């Protein structure tokens, strides 16, 4: 085999892999558009806020993906729906506005595709970030106290301060990163119907 023949063969083989996955993938999922819900007049999937988009990067940087997935499967061949991780399976359109689009690697913790639906209160999510064992004593999730700032409480405790015992008149306030992460987690919900994945 001549070197030029080998070179052409390698290029064709690699082109086949790229064109097959990226180009065909683009035509299938790269051109998806949101669906307008005629009852609510809201698009599905909903567009996340700027804070939530920042939170997606905080989510990635804190390594949450090492233990949590973002993809509900089912109903056959998987217990994800029975475990209550979502009202329906996730489909490519659900990831339309996710930047970066992530699905995670392992499930040492639960799937978070619908954590915004399961834990809607920001106080609960903030508390989980500060001390996961406050809500669940068996939690193996590590705490993230560096996402909170300690400051003097002043005459009154601020609304967003965590309700944890502190010393020396201090209060624990969530940092911008913590607020963004919570906004992102709250945006993770698939309680809207899509033509390819209707709600039960």
């Amino acid at each position: 085999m001549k070197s030029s023949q080998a070179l052409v063969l390698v290029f064709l083989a690699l082109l086949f892999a790229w064109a097959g996955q990226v180009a065909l993938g683009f035509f299938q999922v790269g051109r998806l558009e949101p669906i307008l819900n005629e009852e609510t007049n809201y698009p599905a999937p909903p567009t996340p806020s700027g804070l939530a988009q920042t939170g997606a990067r905080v989510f990635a940087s804190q390594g949450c993906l090492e233990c949590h997935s973002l993809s509900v499967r089912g109903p056959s061949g998987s217990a994800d729906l029975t475990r209550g991780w979502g009202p329906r399976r996730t489909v490519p359109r659900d990831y339309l506005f996710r930047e970066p689009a992530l699905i995670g690697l392992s499930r040492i913790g639960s799937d978070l595709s619908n954590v915004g639906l399961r834990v809607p209160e920001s106080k609960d999510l903030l508390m989980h970030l500060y001390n996961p064992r406050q809500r669940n004593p068996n939690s193996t999730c590590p705490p993230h106290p560096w996402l909170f700032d300690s400051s003097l409480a002043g005459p009154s405790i601020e609304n967003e301060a965590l309700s944890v015992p502190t010393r020396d008149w201090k209060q624990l306030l969530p940092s911008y990163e913590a607020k963004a992460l919570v906004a992102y987690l709250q945006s993770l919900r698939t309680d809207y119907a899509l033509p390819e994945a209707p709600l039960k």
Partner: protein
Amino acid sequence: MNSPTPSVCKANSSAGILLIGSVSWALLGAGLQVLATIQLLVPSLAYLLPIPWIGYGHLAPLVSFLFTYGWISSGFLGVLLILIPRISGIPFRYGRLLTSAAILWQFAVLVGLAEILWNGSTGLLSLPFSRSVSVLFFISFLILGTGLTRGLGRSWKSGPLLPRLYLLGGLIAFPLGLGTAELLLRGSLAPGALQIIMQFAWHSFLHHLWLTPLALVLLFQLLPALTGRAAGSLSLGILSWVATITLGGWIGNSLASEGPMPSWLQSAGVVATLLLGVAVLGNTLLFKPLLEGKWEECRRQVALRFFAVGFWSYFASYAWITFLALPGVRQTTTFTMVGQATQALLLFSFYGNVLAGAIYALLPASRSMGWPSHPALAYHFWFTTLGAALLASAYALAGIFQGLALNDPGVPMSTISSYLRPFLVIVLAGQLFWWIGQLAFSSIFFASLLKLFPSVAPVAVFPANRDIPNHPLHPAHH
């Protein structure tokens, strides 16, 4: 034996930098890997010492980055820089440029390490660092790759074809994969779920079209030289090469189950993985006769010992990947620790052993030294082999149990975590063993570089080639 020319010596300094970097990153990665597993095993530690940059979320992607880009990629490039000028008979030009590129690669790993430690990972699969680090890798690779391609092109007809074909595939796949992944993943050109397809494609390119072909270059070039036997059917070899290059990029799709991946892509991934299993079987048929009846020689020759384990690990890794791609298995094991088992098999058993074998075979030739008879050689082999075996088997069993438990809605998540604990203890033991083995190797590697051991006559690949007719290293070719 080929006598080193001044240009080869300059290339040796760039190879030396890459190999020193490779050994150092492996040591650091092994230490951090132990720290990460301890945190997973004892989550309470994170409460006692809440420091972000040593948390599991930062360490896990960092370890993967150090092993892939620091240890294996750097090491493979280093041994190829020693090998290519010798088998082609064409010395490298612009030695200083190559040395600068080798330093740049190490600098890129260092910047990536600092970024992931302080800022955390980007979350992108096999691309946990920023664009600036990718640019550094890209520039460094262009220089190193151009040097290697020059030697490859000019010597195309003067040696065995298969290693050259695999090298060509790897040298084109890496920049193509990294460049397009960078453009599409960070340039907002790939919206939504397409990003996930891209991540799996890049993950496949990195492992199955870059690292695996480079490992096969070393196996196809050095195993015949070390054993004194020539590889069998060229047609079978070319068929396996075509299958590897054509299908390698698709394998990542079989990692996903439902979710954001279109179902046809997942099916294509499964078919590609099963077909690639046939290609691996083809290569196994080519390698197996080379090692038959060579057990005594494996005991005597440290390089051959590592190559033998590396070759069988190649077969085991892809047999495991093929098993995981089977539809029923895939559905159960997606999002479990079987992913870490695959990584352990590929990195520690296959690539790691081939790299160690190549260093043992080639470094003596490049530095005119021999490996002293030292217990550290045996420690390196046994501790790393035992460590890798423990790691892969514990992760594999943990993943299967985890998958079965996840599929049973009656088992709470906290119980699944407790199921994993005994396996993680074995994983930790495996990682410690592997670290000890790597420490033994580092001690002998650095001591030999510094000439702290008494000089021994080189017992390496190049003298042995004289016995192989029609081998590029045979004197008749020069």
